[in-house]
């Protein structure tokens, strides 16, 4: 479904992502793990064209130009970015409507999102910036789901959230698996591996390890070396 080959990202002199190649199969939850600054978020930014990158990204058999993010979103490659990036001055409902800006439909998907996150329905007329951190993250995920993603890119969805909320959000991800593929970037390796099929581990902008999530969870030496577990 997604084929990334030789992805390179440079910020000035900093070579953040070095020759990364990986693939994601349809219906799969794939995790990209690693420490702060390993290049995880940059990889997602490169794939979606938010930052400049070189290399090849093929989605559903078509190579993405990555000149802008619109092309990917229209095709169903939808990013739920780090730090949520919701429209904090607009109402919750306006945020969800904007989620369906380029693809999907608010009418069709609103009930589904409100079903997954009932609190958003209660707060639908509220200004998004007034929500709690967890609610804002739910809104960010909900906004991404409005676009009917075929591949949902999730960037650090657990960041700064209480463990209870993380559990709630991750159980939603698990339930989404039947409908879409998910590429999950996480620092919380334990949580991520628990719901993933496979995982790649990044260090200093390179892929240093790859394997099935179940096996990675059992590999004590590996967990100590790269994941701080």
């Amino acid at each position, binding site marked *: 479904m997604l084929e990334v080959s030789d992805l390179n990202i440079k910020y000035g002199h900093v070579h953040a992502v070095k020759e990364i190649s990986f693939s994601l199969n349809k219906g799969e939850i794939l995790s990209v793990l690693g420490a702060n600054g390993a290049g995880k978020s940059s990889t997602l930014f490169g794939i*979606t064209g*938010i930052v400049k990158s070189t290399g090849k990204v093929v989605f559903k058999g078509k190579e993405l130009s990555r000149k*802008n*993010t*619109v092309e990917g*979103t*229209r095709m169903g490659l*939808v*990013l*739920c*970015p780090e730090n*949520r*990036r*919701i*429209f*904090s*001055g*607009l109402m919750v409902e*306006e945020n969800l*409507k*904007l*989620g369906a*800006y*380029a*693809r999907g439909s608010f009418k069709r998907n609103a009930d589904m999102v409100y079903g997954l996150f009932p609190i958003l329905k209660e707060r639908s007329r509220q*200004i998004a*910036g*007034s929500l709690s951190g967890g609610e804002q993250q739910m809104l960010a995920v909900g*906004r*991404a789901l409005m*676009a009917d993603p075929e591949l949902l890119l999730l960037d650090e969805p657990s960041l700064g959230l209480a463990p209870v909320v993380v559990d709630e959000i991750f159980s939603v991800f698990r339930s989404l698996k039947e409908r879409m593929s998910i590429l999950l970037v996480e620092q919380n390796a334990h949580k991520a591996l628990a719901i993933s099929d496979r995982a790649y581990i990044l260090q200093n902008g390179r892929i240093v390890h790859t394997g099935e999530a179940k096996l990675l969870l059992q590999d004590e030496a590996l967990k100590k070396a790269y994941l701080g577990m």
Partner: protein
Amino acid sequence: MIILQSIILGIPQGALYGLMGFGIALIFRSVGIINFGHGHAAMISVFIAFTVFSATQNYLLALVCGVCSGFIFGLLIDRVLMRPIKHISHGSMLMITLGLLMVFEGLAILVWGADYQIYPVIAKGVPYTVGEGLRRLVIPRNEIAITMIALVVSIILAFLLKYTKLGTAIRARGQDEIGARVVGIDTNRIDAIVWGIGIGLAVLVGVLAAPKSSVHPNMLINMQLYGITAGVLGGFGSLFGAIWGGLILGILEKLVGVYISPDYQISIIFLLIIVVLVIKPSGIFAGKGSGRV
């Protein structure tokens, strides 16, 4: 009666400040810079309107040509000058707007000369009067026309921004650029349109103000100053703060002129800005913690 008369004359003036400020604030919310070349970019288009009017004597045609050319200037400024450096440096973008001010001034002098040209009012005729003798209020037709136009344009803008897909995209882009891009908004296109609307509005203001200011290369520099002031007063963060700020400014200007002295018009307004910035830096009409809506 004098106070009422001042308010009546202050409203159309304030509406013009407000529309000018609205355009400046719109660009600011999207791109993050104050366009110091705003008035001068629009001035070129007012000269175009003036040229069209001189040739055809058709007020409406001249106005439409002027505003459309302003819109196109806006698109071009964004596409040619701003887009290449958008994510590199806000400081450079600001310097470019200052450079534009000088380039446009020189261009106008080169093409049209530095003379003051007369521009007709939109609505001629004997002013309306209410009451008798000392209690008489005078309402010039042109001021009524300006107020009506400003009102209609504000309503159109409100509708555009609140209820259309484009408007929602403009507001979203002002809130969070990456957020806007991931939902599939082409932020480059939005920025270009925002520049177009901003400069187009300033041309409308310039043409409506031209009978009083005359058409000359520096005709809109004060208007731009008052427009920025209106934005600060109302809050760059709130959608229509600039328009309310402009109205307050226009009325206050007249009141100060009548009750204190015309000499103090500008100083008292800037004093007011300092007071607003000290007490409520986000502007009088900014919502709580709303950022750039």
